[in-house]
């Protein structure tokens, strides 16, 4: 440890405890006095602490045989020198980092389904903005399958479904989400979906009422009017449009306007060829045949009857429908008698019900 002498009091001090100002060395006590004097004169002195090259600046180790080498501006011992130049990362930090990386990788693998669901969610959201609702619905269904409690996904799915006229999917998604409860009942997304939902449900209510009226003889006109109101209220639904057309067909049937009846049923079949619409065309041709006895009408009725039977097999719901209306059309072709559903049921099915009741 090196010593030096103070330029003011000439006392011997350790170099590390001395300071320098304007090339003069001071002990700590004299440095304070000198500073106070210069402060009073308005130009305070600037001091720098002297460095003892025989003492390590970091750990304070005394080099008894000479000076330590300077690394940049400081003398550092053989232990501290390399440490200061390249301070080591502690072992616990390295291990923590390694642990975090492993955990992050595990989380990414574990969260694959989340990323899939998230991708489908954002894709669905993007498609909704592009008004591609049917495409969006498919993607959002996948998100809701993985995350049925996601407000955003459920609201988007319900919106996409309602905008394609798919009330059933919307209803299923909403009921599967906390029984239809959402975190923010005042959010713009929720209110938008609710407005759509209310409109769709009101329209579905009207079409159900119209279907009830259509089953009552003589109220077909009233039913058709209500059906068209429903279709106009919820124009996104192809099912309501189809139902309204079917109610028009029922009016034509009631008025015995079988050409009008056939024209409406052919229009429905052209737009949506399935077991149900094929059955409608078969029914109309059967009426025409019953009225005119024209063999071409009979041939068409038979052709569409076979088509309806075949197409209905693809869907259990349609098959069930066919089992109900099929025998009535067959009766119409075979007997050339045009009777309503109610008349047919009274004539042929009332005893079946009684049998079933017994």
């Amino acid at each position, binding site marked *: 440890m090196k010593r030096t002498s103070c330029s003011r009091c000439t006392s011997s001090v350790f170099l590390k405890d001395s300071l320098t100002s304007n090339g003069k060395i001071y002990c700590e006590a004299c440095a304070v006095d000198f500073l106070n004097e210069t402060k009073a004169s308005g130009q305070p002195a600037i001091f720098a602490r002297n460095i003892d090259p025989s003492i390590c600046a970091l750990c304070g180790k005394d080099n008894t045989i000479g000076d330590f080498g300077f690394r940049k501006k*400081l003398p550092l011992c053989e232990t501290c020198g390399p440490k*200061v130049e390249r*301070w080591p990362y502690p072992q616990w930090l390295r291990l*923590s980092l390694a642990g975090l990386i492993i955990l*992050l990788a595990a989380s990414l693998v574990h969260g694959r389904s*989340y990323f899939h669901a998230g*991708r489908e969610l954002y894709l669905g959201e993007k498609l909704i903005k592009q008004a591609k609702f049917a495409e969006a619905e498919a993607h959002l269904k996948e998100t809701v399958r993985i*995350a049925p409690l*996601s407000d955003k996904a459920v609201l988007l799915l319900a919106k996409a479904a309602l905008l394609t006229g798919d009330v059933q999917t919307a209803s299923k998604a909403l009921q599967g989400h906390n029984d239809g409860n959402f975190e923010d009942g005042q959010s713009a997304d929720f209110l938008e979906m609710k407005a759509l939902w209310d409109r769709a449900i009101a329209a579905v209510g009207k079409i159900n009422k119209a279907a009830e009226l259509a089953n009552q003889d003589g109220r077909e006109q009233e039913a058709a009017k209500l059906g068209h109101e429903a279709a106009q209220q919820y124009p996104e639904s192809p099912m309501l449009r189809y139902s309204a057309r079917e109610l028009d067909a029922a009016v034509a049937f009631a008025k015995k306007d079988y050409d009008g009846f056939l024209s409406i049923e052919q229009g429905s079949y052209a737009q949506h060829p399935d077991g149900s619409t094929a059955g409608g065309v078969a029914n109309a041709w059967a009426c025409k045949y019953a009225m005119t006895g024209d063999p071409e009408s009979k041939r068409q009725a038979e052709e569409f009857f076979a088509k309806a039977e075949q197409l209905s097999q693809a869907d259990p719901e349609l098959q069930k429908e066919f089992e109900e209306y099929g025998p009535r059309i067959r009766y119409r072709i075979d007997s050339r008698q045009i009777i309503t559903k109610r008349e047919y049921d009274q004539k042929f099915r009332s005893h079946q019900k009684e049998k079933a009741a017994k």
Partner: protein
Amino acid sequence: MFFIPGIVITVLTFPGVIVHEAGHLFFCRLFGLQVYDVCFFRFKNPAGYVIHEVSDDFTAQFFVSIGPFISNTVLCVLFCTAAFLPVWELKIADPLAYFFYWLGLSIGMHAFPSTTDLKHLWERAPALAKKGNALAIVSLPLAGILVILNYGRVVWADLGYGILVGVLGPIAIFKALV
């Protein structure tokens, strides 16, 4: 606004302090600056520090001062991205996701450089900016904003920043990928 002692917040978000100081150390090592002492975490103010030489090289000074802001922000986005979907969008109660979200937010909260870090930049940047030094030009507004945000810590600007980065970062990533 309710008051929670700073030390409580610091303890609850301690990983952010460690990552911040590790960031300083990383950039010191990267630019070959001497480091005299490091504290990754302690129950005092400041909760961590790295004492290093003041470099004459502005680039080194810039990265040592601002580096932790960048690295903490990047790590916040990374960890929050891993957890963002189940926590925010999908509402899936996954403990691992919540752990990562806490980690990400903690790291994001401690992104701001200290006023001491910024002081060195603030002192040297104007002269270098006049000479056309790109980093100095960038660092002037950045340091200014960060100084303001540092003072904003009393009104939870640090937590606000963490949440902002931890939510908007992942959203930006996912939207860019889709």
